[in-house]
């Protein structure tokens, strides 16, 4: 069995690019159709990152910005899951990066001026590389909800931003993880850019007490599926064979 082209993206399973309720998308969404083609080596190859990239605290957002050894403020959580492809195969050795607001809903970013305070011991970014079974873990704090300028009173639900590489540039994905039970998800115009309800639910991480550590942290599970590659006995044959 040979690895063939990437499976075409199912655009109806993704957010719509143009959504008037998310105002910034109005001027930043293309009007003309995308040019759809079978993937080429340019999309089927991609950057690879080894474990040598990682420092010991890279996946520990509670401690990786600590100035004096004090932990970040907030509800301590383990975020964990697996990265798979559409064929159900684990995606090992792929880089995952996350970023998030602190427990008060404030980002450590030159452009964030929300009145919630910065936490001197929280930077808000982390990264890790999946193991041989595609598993990953982060230790962090639960981010706060925050208001944002869109409609008159829009608030983002609690969320963690996630970037995944896969093994091919055409698998590149950025998404967001939401938290089970957050009433702001149903009111969020960014979450609502995903029109398929089942797909939106896949971004909502369930509380996972099987991975919580007593007297220490709660856990949330978040699995990620990247594009797969067609696998048949008929790939890479001259046309018509």
């Amino acid at each position, binding site marked *: 069995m040979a690895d063939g082209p990437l*499976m*075409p993206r*199912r*655009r109806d399973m*993704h*957010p719509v*690019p143009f959504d008037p309720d*998310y105002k*910034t*998308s*109005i*001027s*930043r*969404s*293309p*009007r*003309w159709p*995308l*040019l*759809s*083609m079978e993937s*080429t*080596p*340019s*999309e089927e*190859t991609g950057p690879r*990152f080894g474990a040598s*990239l990682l*420092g010991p605290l890279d996946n520990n957002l509670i401690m990786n*910005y600590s100035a004096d050894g004090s932990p970040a403020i907030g509800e301590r959580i383990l975020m964990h899951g697996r990265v798979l492809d*559409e064929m159900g195969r684990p995606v090992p050795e792929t*880089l995952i*990066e996350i*970023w998030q607001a602190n427990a008060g809903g404030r*980002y*450590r*970013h030159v*452009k964030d001026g929300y009145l919630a305070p910065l936490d001197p011991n929280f*930077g808000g*970014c982390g*990264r890790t590389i999946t193991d041989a079974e595609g598993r990953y873990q982060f230790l962090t704090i639960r981010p706060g909800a925050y208001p944002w300028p869109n409609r008159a009173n829009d608030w983002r639900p609690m969320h963690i*931003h996630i*970037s995944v590489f896969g093994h091919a540039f055409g698998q*590149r*994905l*950025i*998404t967001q993880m939401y938290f089970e039970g957050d009433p702001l998800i149903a009111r969020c115009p*960014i979450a609502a*850019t*995903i029109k*398929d309800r089942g*797909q*939106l639910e*896949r*971004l909502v991480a369930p509380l996972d007490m099987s991975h919580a550590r007593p007297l220490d942290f709660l856990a949330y599970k978040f699995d990620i*599926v990247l*594009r*797969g590659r067609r696998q048949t006995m008929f790939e*890479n044959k*001259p046309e018509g064979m």
Partner: protein
Amino acid sequence: MVQPLDTLIETPSQTAGPYVHIGCIPSFAGVEGVYPQDLGTSPIAEGAQGQIITITGSIYDGTGWALRDAMIEAWQADAAGRFPGQDGADPAVSGFCRFAADKDSGLFTLRTVKPGATPARGGAVQAPHISLWIVARGINIGLQTRIYFGDEDNSNDPLLSRIEQRPRAETLIAKPDGEGQYRFDIRLQGDGETVFLDL
């Protein structure tokens, strides 16, 4: 009833938002000290084979305003047309670069080596190009496009050949602008809208 399929569906995208830099280019956000350096600051190291080139441009929204908060990733082959990881690829070419539009001017700059032509399925040859992936607030799923070069023979490129409206193909071609310099602007919407890809 039929048998269930055993394939999964890709996780849906969400916008990278205005603070994408915290996670991807922390020094741009003002977050220092978590990592020794940002990832993908250059696609080439000392000693990379081939012609060093610099590509400059902006990303414009539908009103003509240059985005100040976008993040761009580039991926390319080396000067001989080999992708990093392939046999014989130039060890000084990582091929991957991450950069942000400047927060004041909206200008971006990519310094790299000019890639070679690359083979594709069925004996086709792709003209030299750099693949781009663009994310920002207001972009709900990352936008794929390519930079081709105005001083190369692009006439047989399989992707450019698929663009029905010939003037639109020009949106993927960087304009030579002095020795080793190119200009490549990206228009998300409106007049001269860039061709974005689904492949």
